[in-house]
């Protein structure tokens, strides 16, 4: 999908540039865009490394596991019968905890493991609600420390790069609530095939 979109963007830039008579600027942009990407990565790499290091400590010290155990009672009501399965709920909680801590390298494998277990519990057919709940939960962001965004803001000279944290939390919590609620409300229109 991304390939088609990317090519569409290139074509769009060509057509639009030709119509507006700005093909010169479009050509110049090829050089500046690629260069800016490298500059951006270099300027945010420091903070990315630092937070990744801190989060490694969070994992190694057992804090991530602690968080995961604290989350389990909150997550149980979302998963119906599957919430009785220890293995499934442990994987789900670990996935959500990794998302909260921004451990993007760990979150996806944990999430896939949780999805696998939930799918097995449902007999591995159709698209069960428990699996879809986990997937949609992963499509909404829930990150405690928006370190990449803060790094970009710092690179651009923000007075206080982390001062957007409260709005980020608010918007995140709202979107998680919306994904869970809208998924629940839409169920009657999207019945599961047996």
């Amino acid at each position, binding site marked *: *999908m991304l390939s088609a979109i990317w090519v569409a963007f*290139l074509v*769009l*830039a060509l057509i639009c*540039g030709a119509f507006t008579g*700005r*093909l010169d600027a*479009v050509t*110049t942009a*090829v050089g500046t*865009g690629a260069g*800016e*990407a490298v500059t*951006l*990565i270099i300027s*945010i*790499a420091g903070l*990315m*490394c630092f937070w*990744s*290091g*801190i*989060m*490694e*400590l969070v*994992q*190694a*010290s*057992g804090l991530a596991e602690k968080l995961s155990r604290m989350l389990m009672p909150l997550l149980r009501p979302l998963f119906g019968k599957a919430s009785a399965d220890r293995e499934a709920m442990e994987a789900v909680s670990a996935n959500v905890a990794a998302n909260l801590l921004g451990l993007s390298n760990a979150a996806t494998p944990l999430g*896939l493991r949780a*999805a696998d277990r939930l799918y097995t519990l449902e007999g591995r057919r159709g*698209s069960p609600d428990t699996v879809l709940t*986990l*997937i*949609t939960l*992963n*499509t*909404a*962001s829930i*990150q405690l420390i928006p370190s*990449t*965004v803060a790094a*970009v*803001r710092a690179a651009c*000279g*923000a*007075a*206080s790069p982390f*001062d*957007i944290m409260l*709005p*980020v939390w608010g*918007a*995140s919590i709202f979107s998680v609530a*919306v*994904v869970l609620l*809208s*998924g629940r409300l*839409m169920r009657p229109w999207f019945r*599961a095939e047996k």
Partner: protein
Amino acid sequence: MQATLIPLLLAAIGLYALYKQVDVFPVFLRGAQKGLHTAVSILPTLVGMLTVVYMLRASGAIDLAAGWLAPLFGVFGIPKDCVALALLKPISGGGGLALGSELIGRYGPDSYIGRVAAVMLGASETSLYTISIYGGHLGLKQMRYAIPAALCADLAAFAASAALVKCYFPDI
């Protein structure tokens, strides 16, 4: 608040790790190495995406699309300059980061648009990509309500970003 929170958090994590007899600095280095690896591995995506974003910006396509769609997104309070970001972020994380960074750089990190773009980036996931990863892994044939629910959540995150930045930073 965040002025005290971050240093407090760092000290607390360090002390707790020490108390748990973690070999703190080597473990930190291992994590930092992973962070470096992440930064390096997203560079090609960012090169591909940021170049296209700059080309689209230069051709006038972004402003044109934003102009057309602004009334639709305006209903949810999403500013015109952030419309393109709202469209790209659900599909591509690298694309979202590229366009978001361009907005933050162009308008300034402490401007209204710069802040809304930052909060939008921080408060949303690459939702459609995530669905394709999970669906592909399990071999699901139909995703039922997953896509509409995820798009509702993205829209909610973006609308809330615009509204909360306005509330939290009333003087910009």
